[in-house]
Each structure stands twice: as C-alpha cells, then as structure tokens.
C-alpha cells in the first residue's frame, strides 16, 4: 500500500493541553481510511492537526514529503480539503458563494465550471437552491454543501468529520453512496471520522481505532470488522 | 512594606512642599492632585470594573461648572459648592451608568466618546448661558487663606487639594480592598460567574459609575477653584482622553498608579511646551505623539502600567509588597 498521508508520533495541543499523544497512522492513496473511536477520543483533533488548525508536533508526511505547512490555508493549497466538524457553512452567504469559496484557490476557471456541473450531478438539490442563503438549508443539505465545497478544491485528499452527524438514515445512505463514487471514479483519497463504525467500515479499506488520544488498533477495515473482541470492546455492536 | 514606605514618602513630600515650593510649582502639584482624583475615579470604573469610559471629562466638567455656578451665582462657599456639585455628578454618573448596562464594552466606549465630543457644545449652549456664561465661561473667585492661617492663594488651593486627595485615596483604597472592590473585579473578569454567585452586577456597575463620576466631579470642582475659571473649551475630548492616558500609563486597576498617571499628564504637555523653543510651534504635537506611542507600547509590553512595573521590580528584588 502506498500512503498519501502518514503520521508518525503526531501530537496535538489545545493551548498547553496535549490532546493527541503521539499517534501513527497512514491514509491509503486512492483508498478510504476510517478513524473510529468514542466521544472525546481525539478524532476531530487528529483532523485539525492535519489541517494545522491547532499546534502539532511529530511528523506528517504528505505524498512522501514532510508537511511543513504551518497554517490551514497552506494545507488547503496542498490539495487537502477538510469538511470540518459542524460543517463550517458560511451561513450568511448564498449556496453559490459557498461553492465559489471552495474553488477560491484554483485558477483553472473552465475546469471549475465543469466541476460545478459535476457536483450538481451528485447533489441536484444544491442546484435548485443555488441562490438560497446557506444558513437556511437543512442539515443534510448543509452537509452536501460542505462536501461539495471541499470537492471544488479539487483535492487529492478529503478529510471528513462525521458526515452522517444528525442526518436521517436515507440521507446518510445517499451521502455515503456519493462518497464512494467520488472515491472510486475520481480517485480522491479519503480520511473519514465516524461515530457510526458500521457505516464507516463498509466504505473504508483501512481503519484505526482511537482511544483518549492514542491509536489502539489499526489495519485493514475487514480485519477490524472481523475482530470480535475489538468490536465488542470499542465499537459496541 | 515597600508600598507603605512609598506612600509615606509621597505624603511627606506633599506636606512639606507648601513650605519650600514656588507658587507656580505648587499650583502644578495642585493640578497633579486634581488629576489624580479624577484618574482614581476613572480607574475604579475602567480598571477595576472593566467599563470603558472615554467621556470622563464630561463628569469633570459637571463638577467644575456645578461648583462654579454655586459659588458665583448662588454665593455658596467652595467647601459647600464642591460637595454639592460632586453629589450631582454621582447622580449623573448613576443615571448614565443605567442605560450603559444594556450595552457591552464597545458600545459604552462609543456612547462616552459621544459625550466627550459633545460636552463643550452643550456647556456653551445659549439656553443656559445665564448660568454657565456661554462660550465665555465663568470667572471663579479663588479661595482665601484657610482657617485664618497666613497663606497664599496657591498654598490654600494646594492644602485643599491635598486634604481632598488623601481622603479620597483612603476611601478608594478601602473600597477596592473590601467586598465592593472584590465584586467589581469579579464582575469584570467573570461576569457570568459573579451573577450566579448572587452578585447584583447591574447594581454594582451603576453604583461604580456613580462613584467614579463623583470622583471626577470632586476633581472638576477643585479644578474650577484652583484655576479660577471654567470655560467649555477646556472640557473637550482631549481632557477625557488624557484621563484615559493617565490610567493606562499609571496602571489599570491600581490605586497608587494614578499618581504616576497624574504626574505624567500634568508634566508631559508642560515640558513639551518648553520644547517649542527648539522645534517651533509644531512641538505642540509632542505630547500627543508621546501619549499615543506610550499607550500602544504599554498595552503591548506593560498592560499594568508603571504601577505594575514597580510591583514586578519590587518582587524581583525580594521586597514584599503589602
């Protein structure tokens, strides 16, 4: 397996408090890697550390090179798109403006235009609501908007923080179907954080289990799913 | 210990000064005491309670004009006029503090800024010029010798300011060390926690505003008597901002610090004035430049002002404060 992103001894801090105590993991190039764990395990923190939203220590390699970017905007410019915890909607802006912001760093205008169309293919609902104020979208629609915004960066790596949060089962299934399509047809590597382990392990090729800022198990998604003791102890089903 | 010593020395200096200082210097130190009282009031409000006022010059003006009117138009002696004017200030401050509760820090700054800018025009307002003398202002008779003792006008003014200052410093010191002061600080730092512990924040804040205005009023009243004159132009935005400079330089939330602040805003413009000899008229710009630079540098490097610097110095040299 080749890794698009590899963390070695990654630590992360909120102020002086260490929230991630040196974790190792790899995100498979072209695959879907899942980060699982209970509330407060450090999943969101891991994504924030990758995006340099918080202070981090240790080694992060992106496409074989040490990631030196020190600010979220630089990480984004490397082609890492982050759908944050809480969706990060620009609530006062229109749907269209939110999407245009997704493509903010791109200069290939024609390709951006084509990407808009492709995204409307995935999420026709956004096309219908293009001039609506984004804050008035439903939760599911905002999640679609957040994913679309991230895709418009034309990322090579997509970080997703609980895309199923607060959504009806049907909408979740829809979103996961589209995520799979994005991964398979566009070759975007995905690192996904999920509470819903079952769902994530369906989509993922690899998975890691976090507990209080440490990785406790990691490996092929199928192996983790098959391991009864892990399932009982950490995934609770 | 060090602090007691410093207070003692300052007091000794002050008490001795009428006996050896020239009239003009004594007058300057009277001004320092007057500013110190006003700064004390502002610091109670802004430093201890975190309510930013950019308009304390207006309360100073109410004290000054109030005293002047009572003395000139109603023939009251200054020792009655100043307390009455200060009481009026307390009420004015309390009333202003009341709506101020509804708007947070920034809006209070805006409202008081407006007060400071509008004050000179209001003081010169034609409708009340039979009281205020309009844009001409009012001439106030200076006090004669106190208690029939042989002294010059400058000396009696100085004693007056010193007595008032000592009393007001002691009161303020006791206030901030007691329940009231702890409540003010708690409201400043942890407004929600303070409320939930049963502190009536609204009441404390308005009373604090009133007390703060009262201090400014006493200072204004003394100023009217010391200068012998009140006029609208002397109570503009510049005065209000000078007060802010004073507490920032001296030290936010410090009682002793306001003495440094007062010395600063009295003497910096004075010395700058003397520099006009070398730099021409435009040296008038110097105090403003110094004020501005110091305010920014202080906020960056010494947010607790000179008092804070001295405190850390004393701690570093092993002297225990208090």
């Amino acid at each position: 397996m080749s890794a698009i992103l590899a963390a070695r001894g990654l630590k992360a801090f909120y102020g002086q408090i260490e929230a991630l105590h040196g974790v190792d993991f790899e995100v498979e190039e072209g695959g879907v890697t899942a980060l699982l764990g209970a509330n407060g395990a450090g999943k969101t923190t891991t994504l924030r550390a990758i995006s340099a939203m918080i202070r981090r220590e240790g080694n992060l390699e992106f496409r074989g090179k040490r990631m030196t970017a020190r600010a979220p905007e630089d990480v984004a410019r490397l082609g890492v798109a982050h759908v944050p915890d809480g969706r990060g909607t620009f609530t006062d802006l229109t749907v269209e403006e939110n999407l245009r912001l997704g493509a903010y760093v791109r200069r290939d205008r024609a390709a951006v235009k084509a990407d808009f169309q492709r995204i409307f293919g995935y999420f026709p609902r956004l096309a219908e609501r293009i001039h609506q104020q984004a804050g008035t979208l439903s939760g599911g629609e905002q999640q679609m908007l957040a994913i679309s915004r991230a895709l418009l960066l034309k990322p090579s790596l997509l970080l997703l923080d609980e895309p199923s949060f607060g959504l009806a089962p049907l909408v979740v299934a829809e979103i996961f179907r589209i995520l799979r399509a994005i991964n398979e047809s566009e070759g975007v590597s995905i690192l996904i954080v999920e509470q819903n382990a079952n769902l994530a392990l369906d989509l993922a090729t690899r998975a890691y289990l976090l507990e209080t800022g440490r990785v406790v198990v990691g490996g092929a998604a199928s192996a983790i799913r098959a391991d009864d003791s892990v399932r009982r102890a950490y995934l609770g089903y | 210990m060090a602090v007691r010593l410093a207070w003692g020395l300052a007091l000794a200096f002050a008490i001795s000064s009428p006996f050896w200082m020239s009239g003009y210097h004594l007058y300057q130190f009277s001004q320092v005491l007057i500013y110190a009282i006003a700064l004390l009031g502002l610091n109670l409000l802004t430093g201890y309670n975190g309510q930013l006022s950019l308009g304390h010059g207006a309360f100073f003006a109410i004290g000054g004009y109030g005293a002047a009117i009572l003395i000139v138009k109603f023939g009251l002696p200054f020792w009655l006029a100043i307390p009455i004017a200060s009481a009026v200030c307390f009420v004015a401050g309390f009333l202003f503090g009341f709506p101020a509760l509804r708007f947070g820090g920034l809006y209070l700054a805006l409202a008081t800024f407006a007060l400071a800018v509008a004050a000179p025009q209001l003081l010169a307002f034609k409708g009340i010029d039979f009281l205020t003398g309009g844009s001409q202002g009012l001439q106030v008779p200076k006090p004669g010798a106190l208690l029939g003792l042989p002294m010059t006008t400058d000396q009696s003014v100085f004693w007056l300011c010193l007595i008032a200052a000592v009393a007001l410093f002691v009161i303020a010191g006791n206030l901030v060390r007691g329940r009231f002061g702890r409540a003010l600080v708690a409201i400043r730092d942890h407004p929600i926690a303070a409320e939930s512990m049963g502190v009536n924040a609204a009441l404390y804040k308005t009373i604090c505003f009133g007390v703060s205005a009262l201090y400014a009023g006493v200072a204004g009243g003394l100023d009217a008597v010391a200068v012998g004159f009140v006029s609208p132009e002397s109570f503009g935005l510049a005065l209000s901002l000078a007060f802010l400079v004073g507490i920032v330089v001296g030290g936010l939330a410090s009682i002793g610090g306001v003495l440094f602040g007062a010395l600063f805003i009295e003497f910096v413009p004075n010395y700058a004035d003397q520099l006009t000899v070398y730099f021409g008229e435009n040296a008038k710009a110097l105090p403003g430049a110094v004020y501005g630079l110091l305010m920014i540098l202080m906020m960056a490097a010494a947010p607790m002002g000179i008092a804070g610097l001295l405190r850390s110095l004393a701690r570093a040299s092993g002297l225990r404060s208090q």
Partner: protein
Amino acid sequence: MVELFHQLASGLALGGVYAITALALVMIFQATQLVNFAQGEMAMFSTYIAWWLMQNGWDYWQAFGVTVVFSFVGGVVIERVVVRPFAQAPVLASVIVFIGLSFIFNALAGFFFGYSVQSFDTPFDGRPWFGNKFMSAHESGSVVVSLVVLALVFAFFRFTPLGLAMRAAAQNPASARLVGVRVGWMLALGWGLAAAIGAVAGMMAAPIVYLDPNMMGGILLYAFAGAVLGGIDNPWGAVFGGFTVGIAENLLGAYVVGEEVKLSVALIIIIGVLVAKPSGLFGRRIVARV
C-alpha cells in the same frame, strides 16, 4: 421652503461623507467586532497628504489618486504592525490602542503640517453643471463621489473573488482558512480599504469643514451615530444611517436645537438607539464582547 431644501441638500453632502465613513467602520467591525476609533484621524492625515501634494503643484485628481493608494498601503501596514499583535487582547486594550493611534496621527499632522486651519481645494468648482439651486458645486460633487465609492465598495464585495473571500473571512474565519483564504491578509486588506475610503471621506469633507488636525472629530462622531443607527454589523444600514444622520444634523441644527449644539444630535442618536434598540434599525444582534 427653498431654505428647507437647501438644508436637506447640504445634509446629503455631509451625509455622504458620514455614510462612507460609517461603511468603513462597519467593515472593520464585521471582521473584528471592534470599532476603529482612529478612523477619523487616519482620514484627516490622508487629507493632509493630498493637501501637501497640491501645495506642491499636483493636479487635484492626481493628488486624490496618490492619496487613496497611499492610504490603502498605510492601512495595510497599520493592521500588520500595530493592530495584529492585539488580535487576542480584550476590547479595552484594543480601544486603547486605537486611541493611541489617533493620538499619533493627530500629532504627526500637527508636526508636519502645523495647526493652523487650511482651506482645501475642490475639483467641482467652476463647473456649473455640478451646481444647482440647492447645493453648491462641491456639495453635489461630493454626493456623487460618495455614491461612486459606495457603488465600488459594494461591487467589490459582491462580484469579485477577493471581496467574497473577505466576507467569508469576516464571517467564519476558521472555515475560510480551510478553503485556502489567507484570513490574516484579508483583515489587513480590510484596513487598507477602510483607510482608502477614509481618505476619500476626508477629501470630500475638507472643503466644507476646512482642514486642520481636529477636523474629523465631529465627522467621526456622526459616522458612529450613523453606524449605530443603521446597525453596526450591517453595511447597508450604516450607509442609510450615515445619510440620515447628515440630514438630521442639518435640519435639527437649523430648526430645532441650533447650530451651536449640533453635535449633541449625534450624542442623542447614539444613546437613544443604544437604549431603545441596541442592534440599530437593520442590525442583527448586539455583539457583546465585554
């Protein structure tokens, strides 16, 4: 009746100045929840630059252009050097720093250009088609300039990617950074824009109120009143408020309170709005960053 229209029209002229100044204030407020108390003195200093250039033989519009550019750069530099270090500081510290800045600009202007009152040229004199029965040539020209500035600013924020990025940065900085917006620079740009707008405001006001280091005190106060009236987090509201205050100031000054206490109109508006409806006419909420 003619007199009434005349008062209304002059209110409109200074109202335009208040409106664009209020707009500049609101821009900074939206991004930082702070009001720039140095906005007035920065504008005054810019106006002196234009004056100085013209004293040295520059043509009005050349001096105008150079001043606007200079002010823009100055605003960016001030944000980077002076304002940025206090980004995490309490409101009190920030306001003190802004007051410090205004002291410095006031002093700089006094030191370099002196304290005597100067008259300031207007490009609109001697062009009768700008003049009309109710307004002087400069007044109508200045209304036009204010409207052009407003149109440009709104077009910039509405139609350009950079304007969109600035709005995003002001609204949700964390999210803006995740899409690659350099939020720090957006703030600096905002200061640059605000300073440039301020320069225009100063140059439009100077022929009316005359140029001296304290010329902007009253104007800033009226702009505050306009911003508070319209809602300090709403650019359209600020513009509306600015024009309204300009007209109210003139009418009340002429017919109700008297010319000499016109500034109290601003005081009354500010306190009245804060007491009755703190969010202003069109504001969304009152942001209490105590």
